[in-house]
């Protein structure tokens, strides 16, 4: 089962919920905001219900902890750069710490995350 009316209706629900949420924010109306968020959640659960009906995908299972660790490393690199900005007042020190931060982020993004997703990749089978 590919694109279908259930998906279409779910997307309409999502858009309505999102619009109402934004209207609630704009008008500072907590009721509207709450209703909007609930409608968005309803749409997500509509999608979740449809998901198993759509057939198997060509993807192997991948370790979630490793995926989150990769994302954590990417964010940690940013933290190092930001902290480094306040750790030293010198331009050279800031450049070095920013480069260290970028290196940590890249390690998470181009080594850890691909390794996580390719661990049980379907093309290996």
């Amino acid at each position: 089962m590919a694109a279908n009316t259930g998906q279409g209706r779910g997307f309409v629900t999502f858009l309505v919920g999102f619009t109402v949420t934004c209207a609630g924010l704009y008008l500072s109306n907590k009721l509207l905001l709450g209703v909007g968020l609930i409608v968005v959640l309803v749409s997500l659960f509509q999608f979740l219900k449809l998901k198993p009906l759509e057939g198997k995908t060509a993807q192997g299972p991948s370790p979630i902890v490793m995926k989150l660790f990769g994302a954590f490393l990417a964010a940690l690199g940013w933290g190092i750069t930001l902290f480094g900005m306040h750790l030293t007042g010198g331009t050279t020190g800031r450049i070095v710490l920013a480069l260290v931060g970028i290196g940590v982020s890249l390690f998470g993004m181009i080594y850890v995350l691909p390794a996580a997703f390719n661990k049980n990749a379907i093309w290996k089978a």
Partner: protein
Amino acid sequence: MNLIRRYCLSLCMLTLGIAMSVAAHAQAAAPAAAPAAAPPPSAAELKDTAAKAPTTADLAKGDPGGSLTGTVGDVPVSDTKTGLTLGDTASQVGQNKVAINFVWTLVTGFLVMFMQAGFAMVEAGLCRVKNANHTYMMNFFVYGCGLLAYWLIGFAIQMGGAAGNSNLGGLQPLNAEHSTTIFGKTWNLWGQTGMFLSGHTYDVGVMVLFLFQMVFMDTALTIVTGACAERWKFLTFAVSSVLMGAFTYPLFGNWAWGTGWLSQLGSNVGLGKGYCDFAGSGVVHAVGGLTALAVALIVGPRIGKYNRDGSPNAIIGHDISAVLIGCFILAFGWFGFNPGSTLGASANGNLRIGSIAVNTMLAGCTGTFGAILYMWALKGKPDASMSGNGLLAGLVAITAPSGFVNTVGAAIIGLVAGVLVCLSCAFVESVMKVDDPVGAISVHGTNGLWGVLSVGLFADGTSNYGGSWNGVTGSVTGLFYGDASQLAAQLVGISTLLGFVFTFSFLLNLVLEFFIGHRVSAETEIAGLDIPEMGQLGYPEFVFREEAGNFTEVPAAAVA
């Protein structure tokens, strides 16, 4: 008070302008005579000039030479009894300046909007014919998804605190920014006005800014569709695009362009002129490219892309003519992207648009050379799709520095980008084993980051957009021209793109993977997405060529 101040300022400028032109005229007539101080024009002189305006009868005869159209008679008069006054003239001068900038910004925005067509052709051309309709439709619908989300909330987050741009009349309604204080400094985080473009933001200047920023945002969104083509579920693409247009893009956009904390790095901690990204190598392209990487990781490679030993197979696109024509459309649109980012053509150093346009042109040229020569010399053929990607890589890389560098710098930046895109495509495909059918991660992500970095290296310190940038007096100057602190600011920007934008996009799409699932079923993927996802073939009268076995066999794990 502001009005009075602006009125006085305009009056002074007008007087100065008239005085200078009179002086210049006197010099031309009698070069030997010493220039005399010209008296300010009196009301009588103004009336005299007005009286000489062509009459209705003169105009009724036609004006083939164009000398009667557009004279003092066209300056609106506020009070018909007193006739034309200096105030009327000064107001008209001010309005002309803003009008020129409005028209410039709108027309360049229209050019950027047309880039969507270029993206659609490039992406669809690089995909197989069985997925043509789906790929075109993603590029078509991303425009609507992004626009809706940006109108609802994205624009407010990005530009809600961006008041103060005199090019577009001040933009005073955009005056609320959420900020926080860290280590004794105030840092701006997101804008708070402009949702639905209602209330005070129902304003002519705000509308112009919205249109221009919206088409930029949509460019970022459409980058992701290329990297995930041929296996991305249409529903998930739509929801993901709405969320990216609402949150991911606007947040970074605010930090760089909406008076956010990256733009304050200069004024708060002395890093150059703060993070500088003239037209969006970082804000648009790196955000799009890094989000593309995040989603491509989650969605996984296409069936048949990799062999069991991990070696990649080339999956050839169906229409190289669409790819190359699409690249030209994009290069044309880039003349809106970069020169348009001055947000004006009149005043505040905006005449630099000529230099920006030439830099754009040059970097695209050297980017093409870089890719063609690299492929030809090392792989034996001047590969067409990589040549197109070389052009785009050069354009992406020059986007951030286009307003700050000279032509030699632009040529070097483009050349490096052209080679870099070839290396990056090979790295992403063979080392990371991430399947990117169109090379979007390399073209926009890698070269977007290179563009941001190159500002910190090549900015030559000659630009002068009203005497300051990001609230710091002076001109943006890179390491090679003596300011290492600008490089530090650019590195902080790069780190933010990698550490925040990528992580945020990745986690957001991981949530969507749980609820919706990013990928179509294996059967749908093998059949082609056109019929199962869109209900119609892109080219119904084509006879499909039989594909190799590894592209048509359902993997065992997908049916178990």
